[in-house]
C-alpha cells in the first residue's frame, strides 16, 4: 500500500515539476523571441536615423544664401525635399537634391499592417525604398528662435525661414510577436504588445541654414 502511495506521490510531484519546467521553458523561449525582435527593431531604428542624419547634417552645404533656390525646396509633415552638397562623388561643389517621403506602397509585404515604406530619392535617381517597419514618420518645422511653423505644406514664401527641423520616427517589428500577455506592456511605446517597437525624435539645426 505504501509503495502505491510513494509511486502516486512521485508521479504527481514529478509531473508538477515537469509542467513547471515546460512552462518556464516556454516563457523563456517567448522572451528570447521578444528580445530578438527588440534587438532587430533597435538596429533598424539606428540605421534609419543614421541615414537621415547623414543627409540632414549636410542640408544647405554649398547652397548660396540669397540665391533663387532655397535650401529646403518642399516641406510637408511627411515629406521633405532639400538641397546641399551631399555627395562628393559627383564632383565637389555640385549641389544635390534629396527627398524623403513615406507611403504604403509595398508595405503589404510584411505582416505588420501599420508599417510604411520610407523612400529616399537622390537627385534624379529612382527612389531607394526602405522596408524597416516604419509606422510613424512626422516632420515638424521651426523658424528663427524656435517658433513652430504649423501650416503644412509650408508655403514657398516661408521655406527660407525654416531654421530647424524635428524628425519623429517610430518603428515596429515587421512580424508579430505571439505574446499572450496582452495586458502587460512589454516594451512597445505604442501600447501594441504584439509588435516590438521603438521611438526616436530629434531636432536638427543644420549649421548651413542658420
Amino acid at each position, binding site marked *: 500500500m505504501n509503495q502505491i502511495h510513494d509511486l502516486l506521490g512521485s508521479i504527481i510531484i514529478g509531473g508538477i515539476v*515537469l509542467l513547471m519546467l515546460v512552462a518556464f521553458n516556454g516563457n523563456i523561449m517567448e522572451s*528570447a523571441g521578444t*528580445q*530578438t525582435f*527588440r534587438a532587430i527593431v533597435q538596429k533598424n531604428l*539606428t540605421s534609419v*536615423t543614421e541615414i537621415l542624419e547623414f543627409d540632414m547634417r*549636410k542640408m544647405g*552645404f554649398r547652397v548660396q544664401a540669397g540665391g533663387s533656390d532655397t535650401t529646403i525646396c518642399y516641406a510637408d509633415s511627411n515629406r521633405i525635399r532639400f538641397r546641399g552638397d551631399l555627395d562628393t562623388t559627383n564632383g565637389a561643389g555640385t549641389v544635390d537634391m534629396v527627398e524623403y517621403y513615406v507611403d504604403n506602397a509595398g508595405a503589404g509585404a510584411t505582416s505588420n499592417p501599420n508599417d510604411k515604406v520610407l523612400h529616399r530619392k537622390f537627385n534624379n535617381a529612382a527612389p531607394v525604398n526602405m522596408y524597416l517597419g516604419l509606422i510613424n514618420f512626422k516632420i515638424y518645422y521651426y523658424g528663427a528662435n524656435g517658433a513652430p511653423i504649423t501650416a503644412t505644406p509650408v508655403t514657398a514664401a516661408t521655406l527660407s525661414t525654416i531654421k530647424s527641423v524635428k524628425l519623429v520616427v517610430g518603428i515596429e517589428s515587421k512580424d508579430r510577436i505571439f505574446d499572450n500577455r496582452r495586458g502587460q506592456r512589454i516594451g512597445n511605446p505604442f501600447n501594441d504588445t504584439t509588435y516590438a517597437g521603438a521611438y526616436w525624435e530629434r531636432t536638427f539645426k543644420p*549649421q548651413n541654414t542658420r
Partner: protein
Amino acid sequence: MSGRALIIVVTGIIITTSIILYNIGTSSTKIVQNLNDYYSHQSARNIAQSGVNLAIRRLVNDYTYRATTPWTVDMLGGRASILVTNATFDTFKVNTVRIYSIGIEDPGTTLQRSDTSIAYAWVPPIVVPTWTKALVNLNGRNTATGNIEIDGRDHDPWNTAVNAGQGNYGIWTTADTFYQAGSSTVGGTVPGTPGTDFAPAHPADPSIIALNQTYPGGAAPATPDSVFGYGEGTLKALAKTGFGGSQYVTDPSRLTQPFKGITYVELPTSGPASTWSPSGSVKGSGILIVHNSAHNATINNLNGDAPTYGFSGIMVTDDATHINIDFWGALVILTPNPQGNAFGTGQAHLRYSRRAMQNAIGVVQNGSQTKIIAWYEP
C-alpha cells in the same frame, strides 16, 4: 525507468533553457551595444562640433590664429583634435580658413568612436577703424623726447618688419604743432594705394605728421566709448564682465598681467591719484583704457621692452606722459590740454599695426569678425 526518464527530461529542459537564456543575454548585450554605439557616436559628434566652435572663438580673439599641427583639447569625456589652416571655398579665395575638427569619444579604448566636423570661416580683411588716423592720435600740443621711435609704417604685432605701403601717419593731431625734441624719431606712411613709407627720422618728414586736423563730424571724441563709436558705458561694462581676461579697476595696483581683452582703469578725479604710474614693466594686448569722469586720468612712465614686455592693441587715455613702452597698434590721447612730453625718455618703439588693432577690436566685437560660411559633417 520512469525516474531515469524524468531525470533525462529535466536535464534536457535545463540545458535547453540555459541555451535560450544565453541567447537572451546575447540579444540584450546587442541592444545595449547598439545603444552605446549610438551614444558614443553622438558624443563624438558633439565633441567635433565643440572643437570647431572653440577654434572659431580663438579666431575671433586672434585674427592670425592657425593650427597647422593639431590643437588637442580634452572635453566631454573625449578629445577634440583641431586643425585651422588657410583655405579657399567656392568664391572665397582669400581670408578663408578651414577648421577641421575630429571628435574622439573614449579615446584609446575598445569603445573609441570618432566623428568629424569641418567648417569654413571667413576671417575678414584687416579694416582699420576710421577713428585711428595715425599711430599717435592727439587732441592737443604734445612732445616727443629722448630716443623714442614713433613709426607709423605698418607692422604685424610683436614684429619689427615693415609691411610696405600699408601704414598711416605717425602723428595725427588737432593741434597746430607737434614738438620733436631730443633724439626722438618719427616715421610713417602717407596714406595711398599703396602709401608712401617714410622711415623714422629726426626731424621727421612733415608729410607723416598731420597737423590742424578735424575729426569727421567735428568735435574730437572725449571718452573711450566715443572713440570706438559705442554707447557710453559699453567698454566699462564689457570690462567688468571679465570676458577674455578683461579687467576693470579703480585701483591700478590690483591689475594682473598680462593684460587681455579690455583693461579699463578708472582713476580718481583728483590728484595725485588721477595719475597712474605702473610699478615695473607692463605686458599685454587688447584695449587699454585710462579714464575718469573728469577727463584727467593720466598714465605716466608706462615702461616695457619687447619681447618680454610691451603692449599690442589700442590704448586710449585721457592724458599720457613718458610713454616708454614697446608698442604695436594705435594710441589715442583724448585731452585737448595735455601736460605735454607724452613720449619717450628712453629707447621705446611705438609701431603702427593694423593687425594689432584688428585683434583688439575683434575681442570687443565678440564674433562679428569671423563668419562661418559653410559647415560640413561627413
